[in-house]
């Protein structure tokens, strides 16, 4: 009843100046898409004539009764509806004082952020809390803080020594100093680089049946880690990513950013379907670029005008045209060495072919002789079957050759056994030469990247209805964000400079989305959820919990020269971040999802953090950085189902110390994830991932409890504990930076005694204790 009254009052009030207000409704709710530039769904509503032409359609659409419901973002309020229909029925005459219409959208996220009044994160957070009658929670204790900050910036737990040093530092600036120390460590780039690699759908292989290696993808991974460690300004990072080749032609390191476009699932894999491959690649580039940098989900507009956001199909193809002239390339990280590598490789192949010929000349006669000797003892049918070329064999002959293959074909060992001394020496020489050719073999100075085929681009077209090409399209920016064309490149240009245009437009402080989207991502990883909780979708269905704070942060980000580390400092030193994770009863009731941040939201470790923390706990963690992906030993049953033979698909790294490196350096196969990581929600790495799941499942418990990895590390940890007078106390100190509580100490010691009985010795019992502790919530959650 109250609601009805409310509408009624609103309607009455609004009606006072109906044409002006009706036009306002039209401008705010209809014309963002149905303007002269966009004409979404072919409908323009900018003049009396337009409105009269579409009157019935409009009335039906806003009534939400038919198939077409407008606006798609939500039904108009009753008052707005009646205003609009009254005005339409009256002939839709524009009032004289109506404001001029704008093509650009009025959606808040598409307007450049204006710095709101306010001086700190807490100012905005506290204000929102106060609106609900809530208060900021108590500050967290120092032990909690160092663990939280270290996980957030490093993805690793603090060591006991680090904890004790921090606890002992009673200076006022102990906490800011801690943040500085963490930001200065290279562990930071490994943690935050991984967040970026999720967005970049990074993998070391291409996907599909063969899932072939992307041999140098890891150079991009290392580039990302280094960029974060160097605190490369985000606008610069964007430019390197989208157009490093065009903007920094003399800087190969900067061009590595374009690897972003080469480390995803290779979409060139469909056999004999080059057109389809090309389209899929362009789609991936367009969708990923707009989603990652702009928080725009343009994918829908590939086939039709976007149903919810003011993105007409034409805009999609304008954006796609930017990538039309692209080609994948190898970046020469060091020009002379790269050329030298190629030349050596070329020579090596030539020599290899000669050595191959020599080997065959040496071995084949013997092979044939041995085969013939066996065949001579066999039936004429078998002989005939083996002498018939493969593609001429009858099915029966095929069966025969399958059946007797092993018997007839001599093994290498059999052939070697019949070589003369002189022949064996020759073979030995060949083998020595082969080995010598590879003694200095290593990866070349190449990084995967993108450039253009040249100054001219293939033409782009809108798809015509019913197939084929429609109208020709030229590269440009989305109309809703102000539009604009990318100019043709100067005559002397070596590339189309389309990506340069896009990169500069996205990296410009004038772009309304870029800074907002990035600060929101940073926020998400510190606070558990974004201020906009759809981090790659800032379209009209996105909602912001603290829009002013978002805008304030976005303007801060630009003012602080796009420094990520500055944003970490800002966020992590806020009172909002340093709260304890205990909600008040009132907060639980009023704000169960903790959108308003009345306390810190506890989080589960991410997959990599689980594995890295266990390695840190066992003392095995190897902090070597960068380089070729590492392939750790896995059990056959863990590798079950790999699409290719394991000696091709899982080539275990020889040096076992490498297996204990951080997870970011492990081989990321597109077709296979390490089971422990898969269980803990590591994304597939096929599509861009802006927010991971954090599930709680029985397979997680099983893999953490029974997995080989856990047991191996528990054994190592037990080895460390054995030397301790009080292993329980030592364990708690090592893992949690504190002494065990009496209950924990008593329970654990009782456990040790019982397990020693069950298993017959104390070191096995210690291993069990370690295995158990890896499964504790205190280990798996960040407070």
């Amino acid at each position, binding site marked *: 009843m109250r609601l009805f009254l409310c509408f009624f009052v609103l309607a009455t009030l609004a009606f006072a100046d109906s044409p002006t207000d009706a036009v306002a409704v039209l401008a705010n709710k209809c014309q963002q898409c149905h303007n002269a530039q966009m004409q979404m769904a072919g409908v323009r509503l900018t003049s009396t004539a337009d409105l009269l032409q579409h009157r019935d359609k409009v009335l039906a659409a806003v009534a939400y009764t038919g198939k077409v419901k407008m606006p798609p973002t939500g039904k108009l309020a009753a008052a707005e509806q009646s205003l609009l229909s009254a005005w339409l029925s009256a002939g839709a005459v524009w009032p004289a004082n109506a404001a001029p219409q704008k093509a650009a959208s009025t959606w808040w996220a598409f307007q450049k952020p204006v710095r709101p009044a306010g001086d700190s994160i807490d100012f905005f957070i506290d204000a929102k809390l106060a609106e609900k009658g809530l208060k900021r929670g108590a500050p967290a204790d120092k032990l909690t803080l160092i663990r939280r900050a270290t996980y957030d910036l490093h993805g690793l737990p603090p060591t006991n020594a680090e904890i004790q040093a921090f606890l002992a530092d009673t200076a006022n600036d102990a906490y800011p100093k801690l943040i500085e120390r963490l930001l200065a460590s290279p562990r930071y780039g490994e943690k935050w680089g991984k967040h970026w690699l999720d967005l970049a759908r990074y993998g070391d292989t291409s*996907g*599909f*049946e063969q*899932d072939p290696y992307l041999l140098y993808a890891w150079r991009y991974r290392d580039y990302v880690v280094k960029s974060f460690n160097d605190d490369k300004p985000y606008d610069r990072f964007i430019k390197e990513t989208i157009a490093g080749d065009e903007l920094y032609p003399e800087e190969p390191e900067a061009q590595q950013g374009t690897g972003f476009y080469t480390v995803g699932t290779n979409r060139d*894999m*469909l*056999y004999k379907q080059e057109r389809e491959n090309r389209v899929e690649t362009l789609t991936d580039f367009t969708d990923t670029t707009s989603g990652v940098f702009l928080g725009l*989900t343009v*994918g*829908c507009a590939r086939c039709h005008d976007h149903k*919810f*956001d003011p993105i007409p199909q034409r805009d999609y193809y304008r954006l796609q045209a930017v990538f039309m002239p692209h080609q994948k390339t190898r970046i020469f990280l060091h020009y002379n060495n790269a050329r030298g590598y190629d030349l050596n490789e070329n020579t090596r192949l030539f020599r290899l072919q000669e050595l191959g010929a020599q080997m065959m000349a040496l071995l084949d006669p013997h092979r044939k002789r041995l085969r013939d000797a066996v065949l001579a003892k066999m039936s004429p049918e078998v002989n005939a079957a083996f002498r018939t070329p*493969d593609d*001429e064999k*009858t099915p029966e002959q*095929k*069966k025969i050759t399958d059946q007797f293959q092993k018997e007839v074909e001599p093994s290498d060992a059999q052939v070697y056994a019949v070589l003369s001394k002189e022949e064996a020496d020759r073979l030995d020489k060949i083998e020595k030469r082969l080995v010598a050719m590879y003694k200095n073999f290593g990866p070349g100075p190449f990084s995967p990247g993108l450039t253009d085929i040249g100054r001219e681009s293939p033409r782009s077209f809108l798809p015509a209805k019913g197939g084929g090409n429609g109208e020709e399209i030229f590269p440009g920016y989305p109309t809703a964000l102000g539009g604009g064309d990318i100019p043709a490149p100067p005559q002397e240009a070596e590339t189309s400079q389309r990506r340069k245009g896009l990169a500069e437009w996205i990296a410009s402080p004038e772009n309304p989305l870029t800074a907002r989207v990035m600060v929101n991502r940073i926020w998400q990883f510190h606070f558990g959820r974004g201020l906009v909780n759809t981090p790659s979708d800032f379209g009209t*269905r996105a909602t912001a919990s603290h829009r002013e704070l978002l805008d304030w942060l976005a303007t801060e980000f630009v003012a602080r020269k796009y420094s990520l580390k500055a944003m970490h400092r800002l966020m992590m030193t806020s009172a909002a971040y340093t709260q304890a994770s205990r909600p008040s009863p009132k907060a639980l009731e009023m704000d169960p*999802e903790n959108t308003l941040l009345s306390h810190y939201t*506890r989080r589960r470790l991410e997959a990599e953090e689980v594995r890295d923390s266990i390695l840190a706990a066992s003392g095995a963690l190897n902090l070597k950085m960068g380089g070729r992906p590492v392939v750790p030993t896995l059990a056959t*049953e863990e590798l*079950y*189902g*790999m*699409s*290719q*033979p394991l000696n091709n698909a899982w080539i275990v790294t020889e040096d076992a110390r490498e297996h204990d490196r951080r997870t970011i350096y492990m081989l990321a196969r597109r*077709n*296979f*994830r390490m*089971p422990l990581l*898969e269980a803990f*929600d590591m994304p*597939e790495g096929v*599509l861009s991932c802006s927010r991971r*799941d954090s*599930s*709680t*499942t*029985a*397979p*997680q*418990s*099983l*893999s953490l*409890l*029974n997995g080989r990895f856990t047991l191996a590390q528990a054994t190592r940890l037990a080895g460390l504990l054995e030397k301790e007078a009080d292993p329980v106390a030592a364990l708690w100190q090592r893992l949690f930076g504190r002494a065990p*509580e009496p209950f924990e100490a008593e*329970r654990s010691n009782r*456990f040790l005694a019982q*397990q020693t009985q*069950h*298993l017959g010795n104390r070191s*096995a019992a210690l291993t*069990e204790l370690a295995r*158990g502790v890896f499964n*504790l*919530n*205190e280990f*798996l959650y960040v407070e």
Partner: protein
Amino acid sequence: MINRRELIQRTGKGFAGLALAGMSQAQTHAMARAKNIIYIFNHGGVSHVDTFDPKPTLTKLNGSTIPPSFAAGLVTARIDFRKALMRGSPWEFPRYGQSGLQFSSLFPHLGKHADKMAVVRSCYGDAFDHAPAMFLSCTGSQFPGRPSIGSWTVYGLGSENKNLPSYVVMSDGAMKSGAGAYGAGYLPATHQGTMFRAGQSPVLNLATPAGITPDAQKETLGLVNDLNRRHYASREDDSTLDARIKAYELAFRMQSEAPGAVDLTSETPATRKLYGLDEPFTADFGRKCLLARRMVERGVRFVQLFFGTNLGDDWDDAHNDLLGSHEKMAKKSDQPIAALLSDLEARGLLDSTLVVWNSEFGRTPLAEGKNGRDHHPYGYSMWMAGAGIHGGRVLGATDEFGLRAVEQPKSIHDVNATILRLMGVDHTKLTWRYQGRDQRLTDVHGENEFTQWLLG
């Protein structure tokens, strides 16, 4: 308000699955015929013209080329449709059952179930390589990264057994698609298929590690439980912590239940014989079919059997040996699948279980080399049974050469829409917001579903 994601996090649950409050409207749009699915996916591509789509014209014109107009637009990796020669099927096509349903002599055991089987002879796709075609069949897109039909199903319907996964996958080893064919894509990871392996420990890490006695394991779980409960006592506001405690209890129950689910010793000799467990040719797939029945009995929602492997026998050996490959694969699977249908029927499970037999594509009616057939997505066959389906009938047809689906053509989206509908789910309403779109298994397709025909 707790959103769906949080709900999933907070619910202490088993392998996957949860009947979602938000999903219930998807179900109200269609009456559920089936509670469970057993989806037999034939890995490598089964020749339709040698199995379920008899083509006398091919036999008649054996050795000649097809009319040039028919060849236009047909592409595969290894043959040229303008030059390759027609090849008649080497198998007979008897009529089976009261219905007289015609299919090849490769499946004599299935012949007994002809009246249960509804055959679709007009499937078509546009992917002619294995991995893309498997992705297309199983996820609705040629490119990896989308959720599989099994994941969509359990996302929509949840599970009836908390101690077992809701979506169980069995394979013969390496799959050409990799795990993407049963992955969860952008759906929560809990909805991905769980691979069941051979042996007493069907799920990875189900078994207690070697050297740890059951008593010791119990002791360790006890420690974990006690310390976690102590930790939780001061954090009772956070149900995820409680959920994780329950997940360990569940893991423990699963350690006891799952081996039982795969322990076939309780099956009678008659059942073992029915599935061919004692015959070398049928033992392996027979075991998987029998396991599928046991899963369905225990309320597992979606069981998918990938029959054939990239690194061993599969239908794809037909490239150079049609006869040998198809005889072998048919012999390995005919009796087990027939046994599965008999067994489900005898136990009263067939009406509530949808059995699907499908492949990523058919094979060329034209010969590859002397003895083979290449991949062929332009027209191929599948069949379904159970779930109240009216069998012994054929839907659609390919042209007289078996080249293209010409009557009632059905895309994989139509097939998938039909499968979901039989499970009581409207494929247009089962959605997940990703990249700004409400994504569906059937994307914007699936308008030609044929549920009515199947039930007709």
